[in-house]
């Protein structure tokens, strides 16, 4: 079966390796100090897409991303690993989107792409950790949905069989296409960049770039205007600092602490 596969991918600041200069003195995020990376779970999603392409000859994989012009790098990374094409949604009108406005833009673009059988995204992005955009896209397009997927086991007779992780266990589900799947970070890691493809797409700079008007989106549903959630305040947290008892790693200090905790019946 020829599948038309779209991978949702996001360029994110690498919040896992935050240095001391990650925050400005005013308490806002200093994005310039954080490297921009391919959202980790989205790489797991890309791998599932590429495997489906291999097991279903004639299938195509396209990477759809929304972001500033430099997010074209995400599409390049996808092409280097085996994707066939990409679409970049970029427009100032998309700025300030919450998850709902983001899902509106992505869903509208997927409708424009047309004929999509399966949409695969990472479970969540590390700069928000919400896991909301995938299901919100699925709802807007009326797609079936399988979240927290570990592996797409196969597609037969227009139905995908998928193993997913649930709280305290695992499930295997069968879902008819068209379908949206979100993939866990614990799923199979993405293959590395392919040398020949990297050479081929080395100078690739201009994927299909779409603005709000290009996808016939309603600007009232995009960006800040289309976001029901508003950020009221953002604060650096100031912890209620305690008076700490500072000890060394010496035998005397460690034994003293253990005795104190035992004497006060805090442990034991």
């Amino acid at each position, binding site marked *: 079966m020829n599948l038309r596969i779209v991978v949702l991918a996001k360029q994110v600041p690498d919040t896992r390796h935050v240095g001391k200069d990650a925050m400005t003195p005013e308490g806002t995020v200093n994005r310039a100090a954080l490297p921009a990376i391919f959202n980790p779970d989205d790489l797991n999603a890309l791998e599932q897409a590429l495997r489906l392409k291999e097991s279903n000859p004639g299938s195509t994989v396209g990477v759809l991303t929304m972001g500033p012009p430099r997010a074209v790098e995400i599409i390049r990374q996808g092409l280097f690993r085996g994707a066939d094409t990409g679409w970049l949604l970029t427009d100032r009108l998309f700025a300030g989107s919450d998850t709902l406005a983001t899902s509106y833009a992505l869903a509208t673009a997927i409708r424009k792409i047309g004929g999509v059988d399966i949409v695969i995204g990472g479970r969540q992005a590390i700069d928000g950790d919400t896991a909301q955009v995938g299901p919100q*896209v699925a709802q807007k397009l009326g797609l079936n*949905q399988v979240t927290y997927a570990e592996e797409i086991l196969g597609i037969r007779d227009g139905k995908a069989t998928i193993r997913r992780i*649930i709280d305290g266990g695992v499930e295997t589900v069968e879902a*008819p296409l068209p379908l949206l799947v979100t993939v866990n970070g614990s799923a199979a890691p993405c293959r590395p960049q392919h040398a020949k493809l990297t050479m081929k797409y080395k100078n690739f700079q201009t994927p299909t770039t779409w603005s709000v008007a290009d996808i016939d989106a309603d600007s009232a549903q995009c960006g800040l205007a289309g976001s029901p*959630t508003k950020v009221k305040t953002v604060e650096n*947290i100031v912890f209620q600092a305690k008076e700490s008892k500072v000890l060394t*790693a010496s035998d005397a200090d*460690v034994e003293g602490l*253990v005795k104190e905790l035992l004497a006060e019946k805090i442990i034991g």
Partner: protein
Amino acid sequence: MMDNVFVYCETEGAQVAEVSQELLTKGRKLADELGVELHAVAAGDGLKGKVESQILPYGVDKLFVFDDPVLFPYTSAPHTDILVGLFRQERPQICLLGATVIGRDLGPRVSSSLTSGLTADCTQLEIGPYTDGKTGREYKQLLYQIRPAFGGNIVATIVNPDHRPQMATVRSGVMQKALYAGSARGEVVYPDVAQYVSPEACVVKVLDHHVEAAQHNLKGASIVVAGGYGMGSKEGFDQLFELAKVLHAEVGASRAAVDAGFCDADRQIGQTGVTVHPKVYIACGISGQIQHIAGMQDSKIIISINSDPDAPINQIADYVITGTVEEVVPKLIKYYKKNSK
């Protein structure tokens, strides 16, 4: 009557999830503050006669039980149809869900359908006023959805001024459950599922559903030994299991330790993991990102073992041992064994 507070009660078989009961307790407080009712909704198979006693004592004025074989095991579309249909009819102002696999699958689908705002993994929920900076419009009583953001480096307060319901998910253990001392109406209704769920919504089939009882009781542990990226390796991390064994403690981990593969994800403590409230929390090689501290700051006694004397977690620690975990952890084991007899 509209504008009530709704809690989606998650079930496994006929067992109501603890996180749902925690949210009922929080929802009751919010409803009291707003002067409205607390309503609950449960959807599954074989619930009638089994879930009522697990839900009503938390101060529920009205419980909607949707009972039908198509509703268990959970799949997205039928549960979405139920909440969307029920909310169009009842028009609640607030909806709370557990930030579980089910809650995080269902919440965004419902919010997308109703175009309402949803905030994930809130660590605090409060009621307060809001003035829109652009329009100057004032709102008296909005739900403040408070959560660490951006990898836990900041805390954001989110509001949904104009869309209802205001939706939020909360992780297990963040709120504390308590039976309601006041009196609530306790009405129970059993709506006709077919009125809400179309046959086309039931096309995803669960072929195999396997759930095991938790391997550990981190959430309820009275002593927690937790390791961070400073444990250095999986082997290094494993010595915490030894310390935990002698102390009769449970082992937890920071997100960095889980991401590094030192430990299973179900032991992660923090905003995107488990929230713990132990008597003693021993943080080993944990620097103390906000998103971690959000999950353990209510521990009674905090002991930090860190080679960096300026590790942020030391600020909230009662005892700080400046030293490497390789040196200190074996000593803790040795001197506990020596002195506890």
